[in-house]
């Protein structure tokens, strides 16, 4: 092997690796873009969840107004999904979807919270997929079962917060019992799936803790309600009658 062939070999190697560099850079760039989109979706979804907590107990709003506010907040997220869908066509979904997962899960948490507040039921996989679709109903990309389940699992934490903050409020008294029922069913349903989804089984203990906190909130309402049954003014009266009526109470 003379010097000439040696340098030819070197050129060959460098050419091949230049090619790899392009492929690796493309892979990393795309991952970076998706991770950024995922972060953006997460931020917006978290804000939606905060908003839902705020309006959940706001007497001044009716169901329709609430739904309208939600849809408003959902709009910008659609743009992110559309941007992500370009990177996730065909084979690429398998390759890159993990980078978007955190965002998708937080989004599922947000829309399932909104769905629960509006309908009192669990959003189905199909309904959730429909909210990750073009206006024409074409899915931007498939919603995986695990993203769906992990999002729902986080929902129970938000419901716990809802149950506790609203248990002190008049209109929240029935809520705690309903939420308790709902989360109990979620916990039971998840139980059969934990052998398959590793992260879910980790989250299951958090869910169980949330359930216990909700049970305590429901208990508090029940035991205090039982005492005030015989009182001159009923437990369900608004005791804060001295306050201005338009206060978010």
């Amino acid at each position, binding site marked *: 092997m003379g010097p000439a062939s040696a340098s030819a070999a070197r050129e060959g190697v460098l050419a091949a690796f230049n090619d790899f560099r392009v492929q690796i850079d493309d892979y990393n760039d795309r991952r970076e873009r998706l991770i950024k989109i995922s972060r953006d979706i997460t931020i917006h979804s978290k804000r939606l969840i905060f908003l839902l907590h705020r309006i959940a107990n706001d007497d001044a709003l009716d169901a329709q107004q609430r739904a309208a506010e939600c849809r408003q907040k959902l709009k910008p997220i659609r743009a992110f999904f559309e941007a992500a869908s370009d990177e996730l066509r065909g084979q690429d979904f398998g390759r890159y979807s993990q980078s978007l997962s955190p965002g998708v899960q937080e989004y599922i948490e947000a829309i399932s919270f909104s769905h629960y507040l509006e309908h009192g039921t669990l959003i189905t996989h199909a309904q959730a997929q429909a909210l990750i679709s073009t206006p024409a109903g074409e899915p931007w990309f498939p919603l995986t079962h695990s993203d769906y389940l992990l999002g729902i699992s986080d929902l129970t934490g938000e419901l716990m*917060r809802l149950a506790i903050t609203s248990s002190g409020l008049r209109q929240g008294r029935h809520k705690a019992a309903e939420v308790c029922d709902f989360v109990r069913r979620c916990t039971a349903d998840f139980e059969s799936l934990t052998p398959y989804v590793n992260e879910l089984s980790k989250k299951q203990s958090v869910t169980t803790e949330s359930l216990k906190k909700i049970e305590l909130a429901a208990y508090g309402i029940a035991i205090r309600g039982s005492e005030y049954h015989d009182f001159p003014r009923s437990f369900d009266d608004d005791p804060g009658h001295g*306050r201005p009526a338009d206060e978010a*109470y």
Partner: protein
Amino acid sequence: MDPEELDQINAYFERDAQLREILREENAKLDKKVRSMVGTLSKVHSTPASDFPGIVDVVRRTLSGCNENLLAIVSLIPPNQLWRWKETWAYTIRSIVYIAAFTEFLASGKLISLQEVNDMVGIQETWNDRLEIQVEDYLQGLITLINELSRLAVNSVTLGNYDAPFKISIFVKDLFAGFSLLNLKNDSLRRRFDSIKYDVKKIEEVVYDVSLRQLNNPPAESKAA
């Protein structure tokens, strides 16, 4: 290597270690004052509301005396090194915010602003490359205040003061609503904020107990609170 430059590098490392040591000591002095004020303030749980002004007075005098300690600290920090050293005193500063905010609530029923805390302890605008109450510190101090107010609601009723829970309830719910508007990251502030829902709930329960038993004064007055 140039011997002179070596000496300089060594001196640089030396200074650093010493500064860390002295700052820790200065902060310990300030912290002692802070603990004493927290102790004094904790008397409100067993004192009739009519005696609050006396407690507030005592605390505020010590509070304005903290200025000399802060001055001692700020004079030690090299220019532009706020972010390098702030962890040393962050915890103490948060307690100062809590103390200032508690006295303000007891005195006026109002929320103290960050600027008002600065004024109370004499933190200057011009120090801001060396020592500053950060927004996080201010919010942390307020959360501590909420924790304490839920206890105060309970103990006021025990002492026969049935109006206090209503005042506290209005103040805390307003603050809670404010916090809810913040876009918090998943950090320690978020975790502590998450915990105050129990304080809000406890205060609400006290308000209900008192209202349903009609122990509080005529509604008109509670409105004024």
